[in-house]
């Protein structure tokens, strides 16, 4: 074999090697359908957080901190704001290179942080967790703020101190008092849940105040001849008994 032939062979080998690697890399960049679904521990250890991965406790802490430190949010919040909720937001980037990208796309992770002021007005901050900035901050109405489990717990404790309700609950009062410490614990025999009440009447306190209708569940049944609602803003309890309505 001449030196020239040997050289050509080597060149062909190198070319084939390069093309082989290239083909393999092409496949690696277009993973089989289920590959992204599986989570081999080695790959996970190096895996970056994906835009739709659920928020972790650290993410929530960071979002809260970024929001509270922002001057616009601080100005809107006033004194002693209460954190209401933090939720993942999946916002679009400004531009999109491909409608069906086969490679990872840089999409910032965002969170919506809601606060309640002492006067019941809400503040919404949109936080960019990737860039650690506040994208927007605005006031929202009380109506746009969700109740929290703490609201239900607070309303339940207020209600259970009411003489009328204590009388209605009788021997079951103690069980409901325990439930008030952990509202919405569906697996328990006794539970207290609630819904936010709104009114449109000008004289009705629940037109402007934060009001909760409480529900008392024993097993699968709900206390139904007694209606209980609590004005959390004024800390006032309303109990209506004997409402055994018929068809």
């Amino acid at each position, binding site marked *: 074999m001449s030196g020239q032939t040997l050289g050509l062979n080597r060149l062909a080998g190198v070319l*084939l090697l390069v093309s082989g*690697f290239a083909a393999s890399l*092409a496949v690696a960049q*277009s993973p089989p359908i289920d590959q992204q*679904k599986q989570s081999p521990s080695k790959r996970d250890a190096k895996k970056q957080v*994906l835009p739709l991965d659920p928020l972790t406790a650290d993410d929530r802490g960071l979002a809260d901190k970024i929001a509270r430190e922002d001057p616009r949010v601080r100005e809107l919040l006033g004194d002693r704001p209460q954190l209401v909720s933090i939720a993942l937001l999946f916002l679009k980037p400004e531009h999109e290179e491909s*409608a*069906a990208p086969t490679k990872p796309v840089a999409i910032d992770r965002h969170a919506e942080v809601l606060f309640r002021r002492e006067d019941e007005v809400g503040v919404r901050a949109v936080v960019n967790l990737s860039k650690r900035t506040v994208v927007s901050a605005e006031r929202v109405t009380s109506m746009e703020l969700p*109740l929290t489990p703490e609201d239900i717990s607070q309303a339940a404790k207020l209600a259970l101190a009411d003489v009328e309700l204590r009388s209605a609950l009788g021997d079951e009062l103690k069980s409901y008092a325990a439930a008030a410490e952990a509202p919405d614990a569906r697996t328990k025999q006794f539970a207290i849940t609630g819904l936010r009440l709104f009114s449109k009447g000008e004289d009705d306190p629940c037109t402007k105040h934060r009001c909760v209708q409480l529900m008392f569940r024993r097993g699968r049944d709900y206390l139904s001849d007694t209606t209980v609602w609590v004005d959390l803003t004024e800390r006032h309890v309303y109990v209506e008994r004997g409402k055994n309505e018929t068809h």
Partner: protein
Amino acid sequence: MRRTNLLAVLPILFGFLALPRLASGQTPPPWMPCSGVHLIDQKFPLVGPEETHWRLCMEAAPRNGLIIHWAFFRKSPNAPWLRLFWDARVSDIFVPYHSGSPRYYDMSNFSFSMTPIGSADCPAAVGGTPLGGTVCKEVRDRGLAWKDDANVRRGQELVLWGALDAANYNYVIEWTFRDDGVVLGRVGATAVNLPGVPYETHVHNPIWRMDIDLNGFPSDSVSFGTHTETGPTGVDTDPVIAQEGPRDWDPHAFNSLDVSDATLVNGHGHKSYYQLIPLPTGGLSRHQESFTQHDFWVTTYNGTELWAAQLPNYVNPPQNAANADIVVWYKGSIHHHPRDEDGEYVGHYWHGEALVMWTGFMLKPHDLFDRTPLNP
């Protein structure tokens, strides 16, 4: 010489590893912004060569329940992946009672969590797989796709559902992705009737928000499909909705919101679109709140505009909605007139569960395929 042969063998080996996948000619799957149980990938039919394929992300969230993100559809193994949704969710469930009060906003006013789901809700025997403890995935037969005398084809579907634990109510939020490219959205309400007024009629109004992106997020338009008849002659019109705003559904006019993209056509050169078609159960309500005065709304994309009650504000002043990044909204209704079957008083307590009542819609492809793959 031996070294040269080795160099030559290695790439052949690599090449062989690559060949089976490259030779198939399938378009590579899109990268997805989710993983684990949140990434759903389903080809149809379940057995045999692929005809169609769905790939999407699901999020089980407090407040809104089951949310769909980045839903891609591939109409044939060699076709490009088409993104249908950036985000699809139930925005809110508004529940006014007949006496005028209460008037609940069951999603926006509380961070309700999703109920647990196990094998009793989601049995393997019907194609069910519980995902993440709160979502059920069912992959199943969906009945007849078509029939022509003795020739017949049954269809298949992927169903994702989860339930929101809304105090005395459970709301079942369901998304169905069919082998023919159709998407169905449904909400079911099941409950212990409202304590204090278990016999009072009320309406559950789920309002869906769907950020539809065909071929990427710019350049989408929404047309308002309408059928009219004069004498014996019928005509279908489909004018583009030029500005943000509401539309009303008339069952006699077969109204639909038809979403298209300026760049998306099928092999015949026909404009492809997805039709949003109401599937009401009994009727669609109107209440005094202005956002309930219409069945459809079209808005332009704003990622923080998520709440249905704010729709009149979102469209004021109205922006251009043609050839834009659009979001469509649809309000369904469940009229719950309590009945003895729901339950009864036992002492001071109400015992019984109202059975699931449903409402929903269909998103149906039109001129997306050159011909349905279910009848090749």
